[in-house]
């Protein structure tokens, strides 16, 4: 892996693990796959959105207005749902799912965005969170972190934010044979308001 990618993914993994350890959980219960939690459904999304709205949580994104373009649909204002790329197939089966290719305006699509269900826009990552063998039937459980604005933060210590350090060979010794490259950082991810983040747990459909 490229070292710069490793640096940013490590930051993401720490935040992911903090949310998995400390955020409140709610199981998807409206699916039909016979497991607990079930697969993701529109009803489960609506329950989480209702809870975030009830906590006066602010949404990240405003909506995308409908346009007269074939096959597109308006997109609601939304919270973020951070999840694993393993859920890409399951999401397509959720009632009301709008793939990002169907947004009326493509310049509003985020890099990692897969699509939207109700008031959640799903951002998928290969390092998205899952808890091994944790469902009632022993299957992996996927943690979908539904987050509002300022639900959590990454606190960086003064002078210890991420540094990418390259040392040319001249520093290695009299024969200048080796270069070194590495990174370091010291930061702490932290939930700021527990009512503004919810871990919606689901299994695959």
């Amino acid at each position, binding site marked *: 892996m490229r070292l710069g990618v490793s640096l940013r993914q490590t930051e993401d993994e*720490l935040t992911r693990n903090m949310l*998995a350890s400390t*955020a409140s*959980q709610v199981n*998807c219960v409206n699916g039909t796959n016979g497991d*607990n939690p079930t697969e993701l459904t529109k009803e489960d999304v609506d329950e989480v959105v209702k809870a975030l709205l009830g906590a006066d949580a602010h949404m990240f994104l405003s909506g995308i207005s409908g346009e007269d373009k074939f096959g597109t649909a308006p997109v609601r204002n939304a919270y973020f749902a951070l999840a694993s790329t393993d859920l890409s197939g399951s999401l397509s089966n959720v009632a009301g799912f709008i793939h990002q290719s169907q947004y009326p305006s493509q310049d509003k699509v985020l890099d990692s965005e897969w699509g939207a269900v109700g008031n959640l826009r799903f951002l998928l990552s290969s390092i998205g969170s899952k808890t091994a063998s944790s469902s009632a039937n022993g299957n992996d*459980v996927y943690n979908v972190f539904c987050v509002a604005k300022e639900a959590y933060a990454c606190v960086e210590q003064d002078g210890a934010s991420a540094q990418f350090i390259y040392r040319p060979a001249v520093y290695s010794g009299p024969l200048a044979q080796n270069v070194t490259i590495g990174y370091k950082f010291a930061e702490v991810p932290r939930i700021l308001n527990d009512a503004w983040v919810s871990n919606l747990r689901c299994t695959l459909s």
Partner: protein
Amino acid sequence: MSYGTIIQQGRFTADGSSKNLSIRSDFDWIKVYNETAIIQAVANLGAEFYFQRGMTNGRGMVNTKLGAVANDPMSLGQIAASSGFTLLDTSGNPLSASVAITAATDVVRPIVSTGSTAGVVAGSIVRLSSMTGQEDLSGYDFAVDTIVTDTSFRLAAALATAPGAAATAGNYRVVNFDPLFYPRHRFITNITQAANAVVTVSVPSGYKVGQEVRVVVPTTSQAGTSDFGMVEINGLVGTVTAVDDTLATQTVTLDIDSSAFTAFTFPTAAKAAVALSKAMLVPVGIDTATAIAQSQDLLSDATDNQGLIGVKLAAGNLAPAGNANDVIYWVAGKSFSVDNQ
């Protein structure tokens, strides 16, 4: 640091449970000396232990002092499976292999029958799944006690109500380490109706007095009513006034008056036949006034990455973490080259 050197050493007094050693730079070999066993008055205790890369994970070698007085002979042997040194890297999968459950009793502290208790000691955490007859316990993590070797163990935390039926089959996996960040959420098995609600959790919480937690009790289900009873407490934030992490007690006392609330019930297997969420405690911060009054650390609620690279020492007569009150020394090192063929 040059290789071929001792990189870390230390000492601890055993408490009768397994011990995790954090060795950040990793290690290639480790020696453990049980000083109490060496000067023992009791015969046949493991005194000296050794493990190096290439040996079977979970085992190692043990020198057992055969007699009860000085200069008695030592006997070298292999440590029993899962009773020695287990490599730890908390960035990996915390679960061991799945083991079959053959039965579980229908009482508030179910006794779980299994053909193998390898790696299970008092205080171990197990994750239950596919519990036929006790679907309400599937997906939960439980600390266990009362282990009968290769026969059974008991779920240590008392449920508010028995599962509703005996289990006839299922699976468990040992959870070798907690989620990475402290303070962690915990699943609720019971809440008392009292002026200060006492919450029992399935795994000891690790919370400190003064910390604040939000109580989450699902208020609805597919049947339309709560599976857990005490819906009035859902969403309330309470300050922790007492913590008892003793195995089989595992309680957190809150400054929430639940005396007039509906009684808490643990969902029955019949209710869990359809999917449901779990009741849980979610740490949210700290009440500084209470923490100061109780002489507690004001930052005890700080989000703390407790990940480690190191080794878990198993406890027991012939295991490196010894028995309660044993004084144990250890030294770990790194080799210049490891050539395991």
